[in-house]
């Protein structure tokens, strides 16, 4: 699974140097800064990072959902030849739901509480297709069946608060699928759900990809979810992609110290159980006031002469052309660092550890 199913096909979505900023009372928030990626049909791309790293803003910007008088955009996002960032409202309206559909994090808040769920699906179908009410309603029931809602015919007449969390998320998925979109964007789709339901939902995503060959952008902070379904992974930190590659590249040969930190923070059943899970010390920087150069610098125990300059996102590992990262350290040195402490590559803030480990200077 080191290459996505159709890596030779032309991408259906090309994002280049996407930047989004918001003006707020607290200053200008650079939420997304120079994000680029390609998405091909049938591909599952995971965008990973802590909350506040800009991953949700990236996802929503693709559909123009972050437009506001206080927002500024730069860069391009081209979907099958149509530019999304500068698209007119009419163009966007056609693409939303029909070509690119979105699944949101909190299905309770994301469904209109006073509309029957059947009607909410019918509304989307009829926004894009000239179907009579009856046909659209039948289709809505079929969709609900397809995502695994029992007694779909009756349940279509229910209101969102009458469903459980997992069922509501299925409704959201049914809604997103109702016009057979080519791209699905799922923003933390399983965060609000318990683990068994989460597994079922992820299974649905895989099946749907196989059935429809739709591409999926999965925005999540949960590496377990990523390991389960993703083909490719982009790790975001402070508005930028810091590492990007196939699942195998990123999971088995992580190049960026931030990725090491993230990977160190997941439970591994193949390792002896530790009393405490390692966590990444410190907090992500304010997006209104990011550190100069490499944004991870204040939290990173490792040093390089160029750390004060912003590292470019380039392929640094020989033989892994698609594997990009934003760290000045030489791949060879990074490999050595990781071997010194297998499984324990956490991050340590400089000011927390009284003496700096000498091995870092090696």
């Amino acid at each position, binding site marked *: 699974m080191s290459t996505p199913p159709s890596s030779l096909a032309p991408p259906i979505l090309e994002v280049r140097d996407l930047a989004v900023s918001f003006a707020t009372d607290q200053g200008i928030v650079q939420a997304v800064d120079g994000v680029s990626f390609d998405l091909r049909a049938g591909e599952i791309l995971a965008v990973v990072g802590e909350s506040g790293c800009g991953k949700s803003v990236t996802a*929503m910007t693709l*559909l123009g*959902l972050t437009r506001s*008088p206080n927002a500024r955009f730069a860069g391009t996002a081209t979907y099958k030849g149509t530019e999304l960032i500068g698209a007119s*409202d009419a163009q*966007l*309206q*056609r*693409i*939303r*739901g*029909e070509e690119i*559909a*979105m699944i*949101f994090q*909190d299905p309770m*808040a*994301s*469904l*209109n*509480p*006073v*509309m029957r769920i059947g009607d909410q699906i019918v*509304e*989307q179908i009829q*926004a*894009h297709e000239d179907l009579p009410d009856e046909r659209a309603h039948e289709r809505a029931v079929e969709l609900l069946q397809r995502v695994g809602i029992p007694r779909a015919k009756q349940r279509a007449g229910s*209101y969102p*608060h009458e469903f459980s969390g997992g069922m509501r998320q299925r409704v*959201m998925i049914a*809604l997103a699928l109702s*016009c057979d979109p080519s791209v699905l964007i799922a923003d933390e789709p399983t965060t609000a759900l318990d683990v068994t339901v989460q597994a079922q939902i992820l299974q649905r995503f895989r099946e749907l990809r196989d059935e429809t060959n739709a591409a999926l952008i999965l925005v999540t902070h949960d590496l377990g979810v990523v390991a389960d379904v993703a083909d490719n992974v982009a790790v975001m930190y402070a508005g930028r992609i810091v590492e990007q590659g196939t699942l195998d590249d990123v999971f088995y040969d992580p190049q960026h110290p931030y990725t090491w930190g993230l990977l160190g923070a997941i439970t591994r059943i193949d390792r002896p159980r530790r009393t405490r899970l390692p966590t990444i010390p410190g907090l992500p920087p304010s997006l209104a006031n990011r550190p100069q150069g490499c944004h991870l610098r204040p939290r990173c125990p490792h040093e390089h002469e160029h750390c004060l300059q912003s590292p470019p996102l380039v392929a640094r590992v020989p033989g892994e052309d698609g594997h990009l990262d934003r760290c000045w350290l030489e791949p060879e040195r990074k490999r050595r660092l990781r071997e010194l402490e297998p499984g324990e590559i956490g991050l340590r803030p400089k000011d927390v550890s009284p003496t700096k480990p000498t091995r870092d200077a090696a």
Partner: protein
Amino acid sequence: MARFVARRLLAMVAVLFAISVITFTIFNVIPNGDPAYRLAGKSPTPDTIRQIRHTWGFDKPVPVQYLKTMEKIFGGSLVSYSQNLNVDDQIVQGIPRTLSLAIGAGVIWMFFAIALGLFTAVRAGRSADRLMTALAMVGVSMPVFWIGALMTYYLGFKAGLFPNGGYVPITKNPIQWAYHLIMPWTALSILFIGVYSRVLRGNLLDTMSEDYVRTARAKGISERRILLRHVLRNSLIPIVTLFGLDFGAVVGGGAILTEKVFDLQGVGQYAAESIAQLDVPPVLAVTMFGAFFIVLLNTVVDIVYAALDPRIRLS
């Protein structure tokens, strides 16, 4: 549902009881308020006073007086001190006038409040919003009887555009009915349009940042449909409560100032005039009448609320 109605009925009785006791007390504990002296006319003899006290029952203890008065209100035999007129008849005469005022004004104020609320919310922060918001503020800042007096003078008396005073029953001539009421409707509506459009604007702006509105937008439906089907629909729910209370208050005679300045001779004006003469029986009856409508409309509001918002259960 049956339990809900039963509980509401019980609450209504309690509220009516409380209100009637409060009103009765206000007018019975005031010094110099002895109605016998006022009923007796100029230079009464102690005998006349005693006589009046006896016929009206003022010599009985206050609780007994209260019970007697209540009995008469519900029996329809209560008469006022001042002209010995049957109070219930007077109220019944005022009802169509007050109801006409309430219904017409209610329609106008809701219509314009929704229009203005939508307009300002969609243009939030721009100069059109600032201008309309300022206008709404002016509306809330004007005493209704002042604007009413200006209207009767300039539009009615000077320009002769609308009739000053007078009431034509709707059954007689609906056009004349509306024509005679258009100024009171407008004057009363100005205040409510100001209040409601501001509340609605706030609700709309809050709803616009709800997650489900984002979902609706992501579905690819038109902005117009998002605004009407998702944003407005949900923002109107709290407005309904407000409307029920205010409409109930106007029907119950609460628009005293409007009724008086346009000389509508509705229930509210009857109350005001009776109060000015310290005529306790009509005041009591009107207050209870008003309270009845307010509680009734409150109950209706709760039922409508549950119908509008499926998450609410009546209990």
